[in-house]
């Protein structure tokens, strides 16, 4: 069409009148060329866009320090001279936010492998974002062979409708870290915290916390003993600690209003109330850039209030051992069980989570990715991640190797025996977010536990029912 236009007007002087048409034509042509290149219409030369032709693009949304460990591990893998080398890219996102993955996969520019929080595997598989792994496993001894290698709960989290969509990479458990120096300065005998004594009671921890707290002239906290909801003090942590259950598989029913979960929320409500919710929040905003009790910026590890010795007691996971080693090697600390209500001292509690590695739909190099994720979630990868991040393995064989769990890590390893896990539901992310919002409301003492937990149920259950009955 455009060429005809150029020739159609013999009266026009060459230079003067053709120029606009020529420019317009070039605009159109260049835009078409650009879009062809972007769509890959131009031929089979796709190497320009993605680097090496058979490269595996591997995405993670982790920040420091984890992303640094992953870079080392990818380098380890590439050093084994695989058919397809791996390129790690850090992308935006968080545990329950996979916007970049979704849009990229939809646009045909997704990665070959992705690190996904394991408890959301069912949800993302249901959405159609992930490739089923059974066809790949068939060539390597079948699904049963893989199932037998991994610990049960981790394997169960990698399934949707009974089919595997992920390989479990690690697990983790939570416990109470205590700063010996800070406690001793406040006149507390730290031998109380010895895990050999079992879990401490919440009443005792509250007393100790009060002893450690310090305020400035205006009454603002400058140092605190314990903030039960900071870091890994999630709804699940406390719900399980009080003996609660979040899901009833027989009824296909979420159960946030379970009596024990209500008790746990009541404890959090009272604790916030005792120490003044606004003042505690102000402390968290100052020391940890939290903009809500449950909403904290991903701050550099060096600014964590336990590392900066502003907070004496903190519930977090096994990975924090390495964080302390790296950022505060001289910190004198220990770990013990999460404190329990006085009638549950014989039942230490925690929950286990962990990450998994998946092959998204539309992966350019799924076979290479399959090779890679077997390494990553297999013995070499798990061992490397254990060494770098004190990560607990999900391979039965490694987790059973007691020589791996020494010092402070021993408690975390032992806790895997009693650890609960979050229900792996296709509405797992929604359930998590709703519980978090509910917890935030009671921590600000804005609402009562029963009311907010009922609301969680009324918001999550209708969404869950679309999937019932679950396999």
């Amino acid at each position, binding site marked *: 069409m*455009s060429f005809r*236009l150029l020739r159609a*007007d013999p009266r026009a002087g060459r230079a003067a009148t053709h120029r*606009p*048409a020529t420019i*317009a*034509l070039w*605009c*159109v042509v260049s*835009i078409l060329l650009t879009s062809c290149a972007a769509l890959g219409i131009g031929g089979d030369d796709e190497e320009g866009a993605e680097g090496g032709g058979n490269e595996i693009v591997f995405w993670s949304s982790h920040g420091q320090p984890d992303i640094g460990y992953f870079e080392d591990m990818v380098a380890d893998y590439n050093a084994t001279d695989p058919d397809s080398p791996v390129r790690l890219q850090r992308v935006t996102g968080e545990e*329950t*936010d*996979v*916007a970049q993955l*979704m*849009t990229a*996969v*939809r646009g045909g520019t997704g990665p070959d492998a992705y690190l996904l929080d394991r408890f959301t595997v069912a*949800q*993302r598989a*249901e*959405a*159609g*974002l992930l490739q089923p792994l059974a066809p790949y496993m068939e060539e390597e001894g079948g699904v049963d062979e893989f199932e037998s290698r991994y610990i049960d709960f981790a394997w169960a989290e990698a399934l949707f409708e009974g089919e595997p969509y992920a390989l479990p990479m690690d697990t983790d458990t939570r416990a109470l870290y205590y700063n010996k120096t800070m406690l001793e300065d406040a006149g507390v005998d730290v031998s109380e915290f010895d895990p050999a004594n079992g879990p401490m009671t919440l009443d005792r921890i509250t007393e100790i916390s009060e002893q450690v707290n310090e305020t400035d002239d*205006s009454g*603002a906290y400058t140092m605190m003993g314990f903030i039960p909801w900071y870091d890994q003090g999630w709804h699940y942590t406390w719900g399980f600690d009080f003996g609660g259950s979040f899901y009833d598989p027989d009824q296909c029913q979420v159960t946030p209003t379970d009596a024990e979960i209500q008790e746990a929320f009541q404890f959090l409500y009272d604790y916030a109330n005792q120490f003044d919710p*606004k003042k505690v*929040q*102000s402390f*968290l*905003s*100052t020391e940890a*850039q*939290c*903009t*809500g*009790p*449950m*909403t904290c*910026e991903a701050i550099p590890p060096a600014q964590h209030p336990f590392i900066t010795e502003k907070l004496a007691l903190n519930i977090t996971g096994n990975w924090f051992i390495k964080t302390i080693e790296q950022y505060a090697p001289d910190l004198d600390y220990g770990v013990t069980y999460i404190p329990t209500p006085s009638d549950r001292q014989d039942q230490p509690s925690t929950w286990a989570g962990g990450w998994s590695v998946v092959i998204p*739909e539309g992966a350019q190099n799924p076979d290479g990715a399959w090779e890679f994720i077997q390494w990553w979630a297999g013995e070499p990868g798990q061992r490397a991640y254990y060494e770098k991040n004190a990560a607990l393995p999900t391979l039965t064989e490694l987790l059973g190797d007691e020589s791996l769990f020494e010092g402070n890590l021993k408690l975390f390893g032992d806790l895997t025996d009693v650890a609960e896990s979050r229900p792996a539901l296709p*509405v797992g*992310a*929604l359930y998590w*977010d709703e519980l978090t*919002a509910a917890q*935030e*409301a009671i921590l*600000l003492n*804005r609402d009562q536990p029963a009311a907010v937990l009922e*609301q969680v149920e009324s*918001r999550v259950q209708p*969404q869950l029912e*679309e999937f019932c009955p679950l396999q």
Partner: protein
Amino acid sequence: VAASNVASRRRSGRRRLGAIERRNLRLGLLFIGPWIIGFLAFLVYPILSSLYFSFTDYSGFGEAEWVGLSNYSRMISDDLFWKSLGNTFYYTALAVPIGVVVAIVLALAMNQPLREVALYRAALYLPSVLPIFALAFIFVWILNPRFGLVNHVLNILGFDSIDWLGDPTWAKLSIVLLAQLGAGQYALVFLTSMRTIPTSLYDAAKIDGAGGWRQFRNITLPLITPIILYDIIIGISLGLQVFTPAYVMTAGGPNNATMFYVLYLYRNAFRYGDMGYASAMGWVLLLVSVVLALAVFRTSQRWVHYEME
């Protein structure tokens, strides 16, 4: 089609296009061709598909399942939908008028007959060119309850410290404050408008004995009302879409105090994989924006002065 062509020709009394005009038309179309293609592919097509998806249950992958109006009826019983809409109205109702005032004040400052005015203009405009993402991160530090600049000033003036982002009552106001860093953009438009006001008007006013305030009140302000209207319309549209500050600084917290409409829409789309519901929310927001814009236009006849003879 033929009938309407005839009708329009009759109405406008247009004759058939001559050869040169046809050629110009073709050339013109060719020139804007890339834009038309982009407009159709990147705006019209997504907009229409989102209308379709708003009537479906769709995760973004696989088949979309037709569910009729159920996404729309779900909003009625969704507390968080109403809360996010309320938050967004609250934000817009504060951010737009404050934004207009700040922009006018900045424009007045930029319009002073000083030798180094170019320097001030650049300084006042500078924050507008910074990405809101970066500003938000800096703002978190400026608003730090104990070590932040804002509270430091408050303390000097004898006020108590405020937990700007951590206190549900203040969190939305913090984001309104942050929005003012972008006021330079609008200030430039106001400045341009102020510079077109004939100086003879001010000269006449001065002879009549009008002071600075009278001049502003009776000359400057009426003559920039078209720009104020523009600013309000754009401000409402952008205010209803507020997203980045809450996404970066507060993630919707504390206690959903900064859970704005688009943030909640984003969550439904990308966290919960509920594209159908998110699309429906998008369309409701469009309707709300149109209604508000129309309402503003309606009132504008009473207060906007156009310089038309």
